[in-house]
C-alpha cells in the first residue's frame, strides 16, 4: 500500500491508496501517520477517497495520529469519507473526535480562518 504525502497551504495531506484493514495495510498507514505526527505536524488531513473499508486497525491508526497531534494542539481531519467508513466512525463514536469534512479545500479554508 502507498500513502501519498502532499503539502497544501502549509498542511500535510495523507492519502492512502487502499482500504485500511489490519494484517498489513492499517499497520503501514499507522507507521506513516505516527512518523509525520512525531515530526511536528500539527494539523493532518487524511484523504480517504481510496479507502473503501476500514476496521479497528485502521481506526487505531487514525486515533493514534489524533492523540499525537492533539498533544500539540492540532487535529486530524478526514475528507472524502464513504458510507462504510462513516458507519464505522459512528459505531465507535469516533465521529465526535475525528472531524469529517467534505473536501480538502473546505478543511484548508477552515484552518486558514482559525
Amino acid at each position: 500500500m502507498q500513502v501519498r504525502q502532499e503539502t497544501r497551504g502549509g498542511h500535510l495531506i495523507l492519502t492512502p491508496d487502499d482500504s485500511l484493514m489490519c494484517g498489513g495495510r492499517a499497520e503501514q498507514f499507522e507507521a506513516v501517520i505516527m512518523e509525520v505526527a512525531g515530526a511536528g505536524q500539527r494539523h493532518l488531513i487524511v484523504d480517504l477517497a481510496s479507502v473503501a473499508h476500514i476496521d479497528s486497525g485502521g481506526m487505531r491508526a487514525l486515533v493514534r495520529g489524533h492523540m499525537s497531534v492533539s498533544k500539540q494542539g492540532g487535529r486530524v481531519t478526514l475528507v472524502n469519507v464513504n458510507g462504510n467508513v462513516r458507519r464505522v466512525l459512528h459505531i465507535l463514536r469516533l465521529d465526535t473526535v475525528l472531524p469529517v469534512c467534505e473536501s480538502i479545500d473546505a478543511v484548508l479554508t477552515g484552518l486558514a480562518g482559525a
Partner: protein
Amino acid sequence: MKASDPTAKSILVVEDDRGLRLALTRLLAEDFNVDEAADGTEALARLQSHAYDLVLLDLGLPGLSGLDLLAQLPTESPSPRIVVMTADDTPATLLRAVRSRAWDYIVKPFPPATITDIVKKALAADGSLAIEVLSARPEWVELLVPCSLEIADRLQGFMMRLDADLPEAVRESVGYAFRELLCNAIEWGGKLDANRKVRIACLRARRMLVYRIADPGKGFTMDGLTHSAIHNAPDRPLDHVAVREDMGIRAGGFGIFMVRSMVDELLYNEAHNEVVFVKYLD
C-alpha cells in the same frame, strides 16, 4: 512469451480461452517469466517438467478440468501457488478449490489490475501459511488456519464469497465481525505464532449465519478488558486509550465494541478463547 530477467518469478497461465490467455500472458510478462497452456493435459506436462512459482488456473478447462489438475499436483514443498480463475463461484466449487490448496480465487470477468495485484500478493506471501479444510459442506465450513495476520485478507475474501447471495449489508457486517474476531484470535490468542492454529467454523442455516472462532490462547475475562472501548461511557469514546497508555500498550481496543454493534449475538465460552457470533437473516 518471456520476461528478459532470468531471476523473475515464473508463472504458468492455464486458460482455454485463447484471447484471455494471450492477454494475461502479455500483461504478466511485463514482470514475470510466463508460459501458457491451453488445457489441463498440456498444463500437467509443463508442471512436471518445470518448477513454476505460480499457476494461474482456469477451472473450466476441456478434458482434464482445473479441479482435476489441482488434485494431481504434488503436495510436497516447494509447490507452486495456485490462483484459480472461474466464472463458477458457487460455494461447492470454491470449497473444492481451497481444499485442493488453491491460494486465491478470482471470479471472471475481472479487471487486469486485479489479477496483477493478486499474483503479486500471492508471490510475496509466506508459502507455509496453508489453510486446512476440515469440512467443506456449503452449510458447514470448518477450517484450521495458522496464526498469522497475513492470512486474514485471504480468509475474509474466501468466507465472504461463500455468502455471496446474501444482502450486501449483511455481508458487510458479517465480514467486519469475522475479520475483527479472527484478527483478535490470531494476535491475542495465537500470539502471531504461525505454528499455532485458529479453528474456524461457519454454519449456514435457513434463518441465520453462525461463525465460531477458537484460538489456542488461554483466554481472557471481559471484566479485565478495562483497556477496551466496550467499557467507555457513550460520550467518552477514548477513555480506554488512557488506560492503555498506563498499561504501556498502543491505542486501539475497538474490535469487540465494533463487533457487538454489527452482529445479533456474540457469545464467548467460559475461558473466552472461543467465540460465536450469530447474524439472523430475517
